[in-house]
Each structure stands twice: as structure tokens, then as C-alpha cells.
């Protein structure tokens, strides 16, 4: 039996460890979080005070930067474009990925392994390699500077991941579930959409959120495959703001925050599902 002195030192050591871990976590949080805090605080400053010495977290609190962005039709257009593209990419990716995942999850067929290998390897192909032929292709097809051009090319990033995650999800559902409907005479198509899809909503949410994020954040294709300002998406809009207004830092930060809000909200809402789906995908992919 330990003496009371031993218990005390053990308690003290535990407290010491606790303080050490907590301090470490706080330092890490400062590293990760302070730049974000600074962005937030800058967005509420008048532009003249952005580089005030000494720097202040809150000086003259103002919404001017946000009003400037939100009352400017050209800026709002970037948001509209991003929503149109990202939502279309999400819907199309989900549809195509559900079909493919059903094929992978419920059937054995000779080319299964090869097709799967191709889908996995698509993820590794560098966007910079693709952007050159895409440019040629999109111009030839008359899709340059259009939504379909962007939507189609974004799917090359979203589809492989979506298929892998969706297949993993369908694999967790018992085969008897859809087989039983098929025995009653329903087609595989019906079994998929009437039985499997309704119970797969959690998986689809994870895939959908991830897809939306990738498309919303995409930069290289949006930069090269569009030309006019009325077709640009938010990431390009942020960059344009950098040149246009000779460094309206407060507006750049306000735009950045407004541009990040959709992703932040989606993430906070679906955090657990999302991280779960993502890590399982990353480890398996």
C-alpha cells in the first residue's frame, strides 16, 4: 500500500503533467488560431488603422468593409458563381458516385480491380498537368468561360474521393437489404434509390460536404478556365480584390470571411460525420 506521501507526489506529478499539456495545447492554439483572430479583427477596422502601431485587436469597430463588399454587385456575383458551381458539382458528384459505389459494393465483375485502381490513381494526377489539355479541350468544346466548363473539370477532383467514401459506406449496409426488394421483382435501380439511398443519408452528407468544400475552394481551374469577371469564383475574387483596390486590407479580410462562412458552417454542423468519413477514406484510399 502506498504511503500518503507517495500519493501526494503522484498527485503533484499528475497536476504538473496536466499543466504541461494544457500549456502545450494553448501554445498550439495560439499558433493555429491567432492568424484567424487577426483576420477577423482586421475585417472590422477602418483601412487606415490596419497597420497601426502598436497593433490593436479592436480599434474603431466598424462594419464598413462588410457593407462595401455586400453592396458591390461585382463581389456578390463571385458568390453567386461559387454557389452555382459548388452546388452543381455536389449534386452531380453524388449522383455519379452513388451509381458507381453501388456497382462496386454489390457486384463482382472481371474489371472491378482495374477500374478501382484507375479511380484511385486519378487522385494523384497533378492539376497542373491537366490544366493545359483542359484549356485546349474547354476552348474546343466552347465551354471556355462557362459554368459547365468549371463544373465538369471540378468533378475530376471530387469524384474519386466520393466513390471511395460511398463504396465504403454501402459496404457497411447488409446486402440482404437490397436483395430482399429485388426478390420481390424490383430492379437493381429501384433497390438502390428506394432502399439503399434513403438509409445512406449520413454517408451522403459526408461526401456532399467534402465535395462542396473542394469545389468552393478550387483555384487553378477557376483561374485558367474563366476569363471575364462575371464568371469568376470567390477565391479568384479575393485575388482580384488584392490588385483592384490597392490593398483595401479590411475589405480583403471581410471578403475572405464571407467566402469562408459556407464551409465553416458545413463543417461545424457535420463535424463528426465529416472527420469520420474523411479519415477512413484517407487511410484506405
Amino acid at each position: 500500500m502506498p504511503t500518503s506521501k507517495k500519493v501526494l507526489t503522484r498527485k503533484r506529478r499528475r497536476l504538473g503533467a496536466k499543466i504541461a499539456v494544457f500549456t502545450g495545447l494553448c501554445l498550439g492554439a495560439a499558433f493555429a488560431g491567432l492568424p484567424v483572430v487577426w483576420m477577423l479583427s482586421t475585417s472590422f477596422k477602418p483601412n487606415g488603422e490596419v497597420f497601426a502601431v502598436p497593433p490593436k485587436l479592436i480599434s474603431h469597430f466598424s462594419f464598413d468593409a462588410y457593407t462595401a463588399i455586400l453592396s458591390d454587385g461585382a463581389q456578390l456575383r463571385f458568390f453567386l458563381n461559387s454557389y452555382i458551381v459548388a452546388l452543381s458539382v455536389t449534386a452531380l458528384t453524388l449522383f455519379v458516385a452513388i451509381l458507381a459505389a453501388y456497382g462496386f459494393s454489390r457486384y463482382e465483375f472481371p474489371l472491378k480491380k482495374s477500374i478501382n485502381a484507375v479511380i484511385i490513381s486519378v487522385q494523384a494526377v497533378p492539376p497542373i498537368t491537366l490544366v493545359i489539355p483542359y484549356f485546349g479541350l474547354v476552348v474546343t468544346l466552347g465551354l471556355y468561360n462557362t459554368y459547365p466548363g468549371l463544373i465538369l473539370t471540378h468533378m475530376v477532383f471530387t469524384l474519386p474521393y466520393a466513390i471511395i467514401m460511398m463504396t465504403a459506406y454501402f459496404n457497411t449496409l447488409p446486402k440482404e437489404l437490397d436483395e430482399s426488394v429485388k426478390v420481390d421483382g424490383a430492379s437493381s435501380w429501384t433497390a438502390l434509390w428506394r432502399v439503399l439511398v434513403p438509409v445512406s443519408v449520413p454517408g451522403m452528407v459526408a461526401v456532399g460536404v467534402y465535395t462542396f468544400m473542394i469545389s468552393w475552394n478550387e483555384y487553378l481551374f477557376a483561374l485558367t478556365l474563366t476569363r471575364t469577371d462575371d464568371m469568376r469564383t470567390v477565391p479568384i475574387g479575393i485575388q482580384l480584390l488584392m490588385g483592384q483596390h490597392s490593398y483595401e486590407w479590411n475589405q480583403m479580410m471581410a471578403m475572405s470571411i464571407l467566402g469562408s462562412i459556407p464551409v465553416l458552417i458545413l463543417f461545424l454542423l457535420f463535424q463528426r460525420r465529416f472527420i469520420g468519413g474523411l479519415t477512413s477514406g484517407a487511410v484506405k484510399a
Partner: protein
Amino acid sequence: MNSAKLDHAPPPAVAAPETRAAPRGRARRLWARGTAPYAFLSPTMILIFVLMIIPIAMVVSYSFKDNVIVQQNSVFVGFANYTKVLTDPDFLAALKNTFVFITVSTVAHLILGLGFALMLNTPLLGNVTKAIFRIIYILPWLFTVAVIAVIWRLMLDPSGVVNYLLTTLGGSSVDWLSDPGKALWALTFINIWAGFPFFMISILAGLQGIPGDLYEAASVDGASPIRQFWNVTIPQLRPVLISMAVLDLIWTSQQFALIWMTTGGGPLNVTEMLSTYTYKQAFSSYEFATASAAAVIVLLLTMVLAVFYVRLQKER
């Protein structure tokens, strides 16, 4: 690890009764079963053909030609574009910079990701505290690269807050992103900040998957926490760590937006990467043929890493 799976309790399975189909029906059904998977996969296969197979064939063919895309009458020129690229000092500088950028980033991601994941996995603190810290740690990863670029341009501005801290501590102000001696390191630092959360999340999932009795057995044997870390945690995490590292090398080598929006490859090419070099050849100089050769080289280098990655996955 996969909460998406755990959240969902599958409804009770219904036993499928034996089918009693007529011979003809069975033949038809067999045929349908044979083609059905291809039907389900056809949209995917068409998209991959259009978005992957054709473009790669196109870029490879461009790389052996002259005057592509912007002009007609392109001629086959053999390996001339490759020779041009591989002897271009700018390309070689880009290759070297990319190497430094991706290896330093990956090593730092690994160390930070592991360190933060270990702290977040501690039994010493409450779950609510840990959940709050976890959200803060994930923050950098939730912002798009364009936003990350403007945040750090603000922070690292010559009269920005980082330099203010530096000068108050007695140092002198540094123009981080325009000083040829510092720009590559500043850029790498930004990339480290932007990318560590993904490592952290994956390693955290890995840590939570290590069976507790391994640690119990180790502590019964009298192993100190440090020994437990080296003899239990690291070997258990090894597969996750190695595959994350290879994936990160691939992803970081593909980074374009961050470089383009912070330094644009400058000053004096010190932050020129393979991606920015290729982009400039194509969309600034309109040398699409040279750009295609560079793009194919980038593809080949990535394939080497990818093959390595697949080998690792098979070994597991």
C-alpha cells in the same frame, strides 16, 4: 474511427428466400447481372475517359510537338521540348525549390500533427476542453488557399504584426515574402500552418485505434511513458504516418494557389516551383509545348511517389 459508420445502425437484415426462376429468366438475369455493374459504372467511366485519359493523351502529344494550342500547323519535334525544359536553369531551380518545400513541409506536418494529436488524446484533460482545442486546431485547414494567402500577406507585411513583434523584441523588420533569402522559408512556414490539421486528425484517429491493453501490458512491464511512446505508439501508428507522409509529398508538390498568391514564384525565382513554372510557361509565355513537357515531367515524378504509395498500401 469512422463515425459515419458507427452513427448508422443498419435495420435488421431480411433473409432472402431462394429464388425459383425459370431457366430462361435465369439466363436473362445472369446476363443482366453480368452487365449491370458496367451500366452503373458507365457515367464514371465516361467522365474519367473525358477528364483523365483524353487530357493525358493530349498533354503527352503536345509535349512532342511545336506551336500547340495557340497556333495551327504544329510539327512533331521529338524530345526537343524536354531538352529545352531539362536544360532550363529556371526549371532546375523550380525542381530544387519544390524538393525543399515538400520535404520540409511534410516533416513539419508530421511532427506538429503527431505532437498536437498526442496532446489532444491525453486522458488528463476533460472531453469538452479537448473538443474546443480540436476545433481551434482544425481552423487553418478550413480556409481556402486564397484566404490563407491573404491572411499571411497581412501578417507578414513589412509593417505587419509579425514584424511589429520582431522589432519590439529587438530584431529588425523583415520583408518576409520579398527577401530572396527568406521567401522560400516564409512560404514553407505558411504551408506548414495550412496543412498540419489534416495530419493531426488522421493521427488522432490512429491513436484512438490503438488497443488500450497494449499500453497496460507495457506499463505492467514497467515501461516509462517515453518508452511506451517509442515501443507502442510509434510502431502502431507507422502505417498511418507513412501513408500520410507520402500523400502529403504528393499534395504539397501540387500546391499552386498558395505560391501564386503570395510570391508568384519570386523574388528572383527563389520560390519558383514546378507548378508555377509550368503555369507561367503556358499562361504567361503561351509556350504550351514547353509547358506540356514540364507537365509530363511533373506527372512522371508524381507517379513515382504514387507507385511507392500503392506498394506501401499493399504491404499492409
